[in-house]
């Protein structure tokens, strides 16, 4: 009898909400920011501009597509095909010389970049937007995208990498906050704001519900994504962005106080090299470097500042090329490593290459080297040894603070950074086996990390210490042999690049106590054992080793450690140390050294020793890092200088693990290096020690606190969450279904009617917003007639006079209700749409729809 009319449209009011006008620009802003955050690390300014344009175009295109009449499959495939086409063209542009020839290589590269950036932004955003327009419930995809953008940006700050917003990171440090926490909070706040705004745009309950999906999505991401690996990414790509290269390494900016002018020089060099690396002319390197190091010879360290400009000039032109060229042309090593690496290594190497060896008094100290383990752990080069006495060798690289008293048996502190155990074409290289050399950490610790393959503790002493890097290194180093590492707070970000703690099992027993020890680890596989004894196919090594061993008394001849010691002692006597003999350009530099003029430097010595040992079946490898003379220690502080870079042979003893058995040649051709600057050492040690006096533990605990939380078993938590919510939902569903049988008669009409509504919701009958019960009942009754009665009962219960006599009130008759529900169930069975009905019947959340 009521006039026919449309149902009230309760959603239309949202169009007048105050945010309505702003939603499109707002969404664009959110997506734009997220895209920029995702792409910032990977592109140059040109790429970023393309990303901005691409986002705008993608969003507009998506709006358009979403409102078009194309099928959803087209919406999905269209952007995909467009993406494939554009990125293919982008690849072709850079791959074919034709384009580069026509426009020049720079233009071609830029063109390729623009095309790829376009493909990566327009296609995904268009698809995202199109689907969201079509199904507003998918808005959580956009939210997740925004979240991913910020998460990626801020994840790179974990582990104390204070890269991007310097002003913020510095502020945090200055006010004593952990920058990671501050940045994560900023990111989290931004994400929450954006998520709320995005959802408010729709203002429907569904949108708010989808918001719940976001934390779960984030949980899955946290569980599965290798966040620490993620954090490394930006650094790997640094060199692709010439514009940001300087900003990336705040500690390298030339801002050192007069206290040590050498740092200034070092920094200046490095930056210039980086730029020069790409464009320097080839050739003429040899002369330049020679000339320069000669200049440097007589120079006192304090004067270095004045000459810095000269140095830089020389380096800019020649050095980097020199290294690269040598590697590619002569040694061929470059082919074993990823191509890009050559460049950066080249720079770093070059910087170290200048540094002359360190303390001449100790045999071991001499091997440092040239390219061996320079600061950012470049690859070693067997050629181009540095002049030992160059002042560059006194460039401070790090300060090691020892927490425990320790006197190394060999009078040298060995700080291992890398090991070479795998037989390459011309020399030993870093291993590619996952099971070898696991005792050498590859990455800086982002949290307290235990290191695998700890050595037997018998012959060793537990030493704790902190390494504070003056220059950024690619890999961490610690006193051999570290068993765990943890991040530490950088005591002075202006001066130091990074700090971390280590705990090492350092060798305590003198070498003499190992005489009867067996070599190798019984738990090794045969394959691994033979890996550590593999050597070049050159019979002269075996011959020589055999000959040396034969000199031993027969009854001792079988002791492997004595064999190794014999070889070492022979080498001490017979070989000559000189950084000028490079043995470059030959097939096997080690053989050339050992069986030629017997003159070389640490890398040659180490390789020769390892090859000889291996020919005797002794598992051995080359350790690379810094070797610091014990006499240079100032209290607990040990200053590592660039000249301390060194390579040494190690062998594996069953009782003690990897043990350094270094060669100390008696004959040394190089001039002794100048003594190290104790003032600088004291000053640096002071700086490094300053912020973490006794409350040592506290400072670590603070930045670590948020990371400890990451040890929560996310996976179990998530599963428990899912299972728990499923159980709760099914429980509620079952209760709502069975309740009509048990509830008191008073509430029977409500509960039984609710049960009927649940059953209707399972087959898709849901009351519309604002629809009255009666109208809904009439609508449903067309197909399920029994529902009409139930509606009447329910309405009567709701609105009729509660005071009327109980007698004759049908709606309180349980038998009638149960019978009606049974009828409803049988009527429902006769409905056509069975497939969906079954799904909905199984769904734990079907009752949420009924209202």
């Amino acid at each position, binding site marked *: *009898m*009521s*006039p*026919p*009319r*449309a*149902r*009230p*449209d*309760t959603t*239309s*009011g949202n169009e007048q909400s105050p945010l309505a006008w702003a939603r499109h620009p707002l969404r664009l802003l959110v997506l734009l920011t997220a895209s920029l955050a995702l792409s910032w690390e990977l592109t140059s300014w040109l790429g970023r501009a393309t990303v901005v344009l691409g986002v705008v175009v993608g969003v507009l295109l998506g709006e358009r597509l979403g409102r078009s009449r194309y099928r959803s499959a087209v919406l999905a495939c269209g952007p995909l095909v467009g993406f494939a086409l554009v990125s293919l063209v982008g690849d072709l542009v850079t791959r074919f010389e034709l384009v580069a020839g026509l426009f020049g290589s720079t233009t071609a590269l830029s063109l390729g970049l623009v095309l790829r950036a376009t493909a990566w932004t327009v296609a995904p955003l268009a698809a995202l937007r199109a689907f969201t327009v079509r199904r507003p419930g998918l808005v959580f995809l956009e939210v997740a995208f925004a979240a991913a953008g910020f998460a990626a940006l801020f994840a790179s700050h974990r582990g104390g990498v204070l890269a991007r917003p310097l002003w913020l990171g510095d502020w945090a440090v200055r006010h004593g906050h952990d920058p990671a926490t501050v940045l994560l909070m900023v990111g989290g706040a931004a994400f929450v704001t954006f998520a709320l705004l995005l959802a408010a745009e729709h203002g429907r309950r569904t949108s708010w519900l989808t918001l719940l999906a976001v934390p779960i999505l984030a949980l899955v991401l946290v569980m599965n994504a290798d966040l620490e690996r993620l954090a490394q990414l930006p650094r790997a790509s640094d060199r692709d962005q010439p514009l940001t290269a300087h900003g990336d390494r705040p500690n390298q900016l030339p801002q050192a106080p007069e206290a040590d002018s050498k740092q200034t020089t070092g920094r200046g060099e490095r930056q210039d090299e980086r730029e020069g690396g790409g464009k320097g002319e080839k050739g003429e390197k040899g002369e330049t470097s020679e000339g320069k190091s000669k200049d440097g010879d007589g120079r006192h360290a304090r004067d270095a500042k004045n000459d810095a400009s000269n140095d830089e000039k020389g380096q800019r032109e020649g050095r980097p090329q020199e290294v690269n060229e040598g590697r590619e042309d002569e040694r061929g090593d470059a082919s074993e490593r990823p191509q890009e690496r050559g460049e950066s290594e080249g720079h770093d190497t070059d910087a170290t290459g200048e540094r002359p060896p360190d303390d001449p008094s100790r045999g071991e100290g001499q091997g440092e080297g040239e390219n061996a383990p320079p600061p950012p752990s470049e690859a070693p080069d067997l050629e181009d040894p540095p002049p030992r006495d160059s002042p560059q060798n006194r460039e401070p690289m790090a300060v090691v603070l020892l927490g425990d008293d320790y006197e190394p048996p060999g009078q040298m502190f060995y700080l291992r950074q890398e090991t070479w155990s795998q037989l390459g074409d011309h020399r030993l290289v870093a291993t590619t086996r996952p099971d070898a050399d696991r005792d050498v950490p590859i990455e800086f610790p982002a949290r307290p990390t235990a290191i695998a393959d700890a050595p037997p503790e018998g012959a060793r002493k537990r030493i704790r210490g902190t390494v504070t890097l003056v220059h950024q290194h690619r890999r961490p180093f610690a006193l051999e042999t570290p068993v765990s590492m943890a991040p530490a707070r950088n005591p002075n970000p202006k001066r130091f690049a990074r700090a971390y703690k280590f705990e090492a099992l350092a060798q305590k027993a003198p070498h003499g106590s190992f005489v009867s020890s067996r070599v190798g680890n019984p738990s090794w596989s045969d394959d691994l054992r033979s890996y550590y004894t593999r050597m070049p196919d050159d019979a002269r090594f075996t011959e020589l080793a055999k000959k040396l061993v034969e000199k031993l008394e027969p009854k001792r001849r079988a002791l492997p450690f004595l064999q190794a010691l014999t070889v070492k002692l022979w080498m001490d006597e017979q070989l000559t140390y000189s950084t000028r003999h490079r043995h470059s350009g030959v097939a096997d530099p080690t053989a050339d050294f050992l069986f030629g003029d017997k003159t070389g430097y640490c890398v040659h010595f180490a390789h020769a020793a390892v090859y000889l040992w291996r020919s005797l079946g002794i598992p051995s490898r080359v350790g690379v890092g810094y070797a610091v003379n014990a006499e240079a220690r100032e209290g607990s502080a040990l200053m590592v200088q660039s000249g301390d870079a060194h390579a040494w042979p190690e062998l594996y003893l069953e009782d003690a693990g990897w043990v350094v058995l270094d060669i100390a040649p008696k004959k040394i051709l190089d001039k002794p290096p100048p003594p190290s600057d104790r003032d600088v050492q004291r000053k640096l040690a002071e700086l490094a020690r300053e912020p973490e006096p006794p409350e040592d533990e506290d400072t670590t605990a603070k930045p670590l606190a948020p990371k400890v939380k990451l040890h929560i078993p996310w996976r179990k938590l998530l599963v428990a969450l899912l299972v728990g919510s499923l159980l709760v939902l099914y429980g509620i569903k079952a209760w709502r279904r069975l309740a009509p049988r048990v509830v008191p008669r008073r509430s029977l009409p*409500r509960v039984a*009617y*609710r049960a009927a*509504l649940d059953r209707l919701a399972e087959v898709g009958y849901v*009351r519309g*917003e*604002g629809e*009255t*019960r*009666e*109208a809904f009942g009439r609508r449903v009754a067309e197909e399920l007639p029994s529902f009409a009665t139930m509606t009447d009962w*329910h*309405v*009567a219960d*709701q*609105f*009729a*006079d*509660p005071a009327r006599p109980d007698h004759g009130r049908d709606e309180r008759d349980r038998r009638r209700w149960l019978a009606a529900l049974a009828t409803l169930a049988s009527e429902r069975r006769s409905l056509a749409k069975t497939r969906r009905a079954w799904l909905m019947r199984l769904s734990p959340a079907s009752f949420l729809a*009924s*209202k």
Partner: protein
Amino acid sequence: MTDDLHDAPEPSSHDLPAREAPREEEADGAPLRSKHVTREKSPPVTDLESAFNVFARMRERLRAAVKGRDDVIDLILVAVLADGHVLLEDFPGSGKTTLAKALGDCIVDDEPDDAIVTIRRIQFTPDLLPSDVTGTTIFDPNTNRFFFRPGPLFAHVVLADEINRTSPKVQSALLEAMAEKQVTVDNRTRPLDELFLVIATQNPLDVAGTFPLPNAQLDRFLFKIRMTHIAPQHELELLRSFRDLKRLGDRPELPRVTRSEILDARVVMSRAVYVDEKIHQTLVGIASRTRADERILQGASTRSLVLALPALQARALLARRNYVTAEDVDALAVQIFTHRLEFAPGVTEPDTVVRQLTGMELERLARGSV
């Protein structure tokens, strides 16, 4: 006047000579001339079922007389039962007058001795005077005395045609009568009939030279009903049965109701139809929403809520229910509230706004019920 198709045989009321004289004669036992008058008392209406029967009879008659207006007929019956007045707003020729006359036609005056007639029609014009509506005092030279000649308001059903064409003073005279059920002439207040129903019409488009009713006066009407064109099949039906409709008044097989039956039914209704507290809350909720909504300048008055209650009861009765449900609110809210609200400039569909607010309140009510 365009819709004089079924004008009742009586001429327009305001120039009718006093009907008291002939009526007095009838009171003496002469056969009644009109079917609209009887002396027999109908059985008293005491329960809901018979109350419903009264209105079922009226409905039947009205539906037979007016095709395709079932919804409006129901609303008018609700108004009759709820003791409210109705404002019909529609274009000429849409059956407003027919409807009003049919309503008058189905009521039988069972107290023929008073001065009240069944139906009167007033055609409002700009030069009409209040006394033309209320009645006036006339000097009788035979008796040398003044006597009161009642105006057209002294009727059960008054059809006030084109109410916005007359001057405000006539409008206010009418409105006083509507509100108080009395008229004041020459300082003497005379009560109108207990069953006094005004069905006013106005043309929403042809507004030149009219005096639109102010909101305060619109408030006196229980419903403002906007009639739309009837469905084509109803129009066809109407054309086919045109002649029969013409003889509507002569169809004895369709029952009529008497005045006292209607009054009894009202009493029964207000006593027996239960209004739950939840309904009260819903009404108040709707009113608060109209007051809070920025599209509405002036929200629903408390009087409108008071008037709404009997209307809801009446609708429940017509649905043979003895309790008011949410559906009654849903069905009547727009007609009850829309014309009483002052909407902000730019709101083009007031009905939609009220429907939306009502829907929100009803949704709240429905969700609370399971």
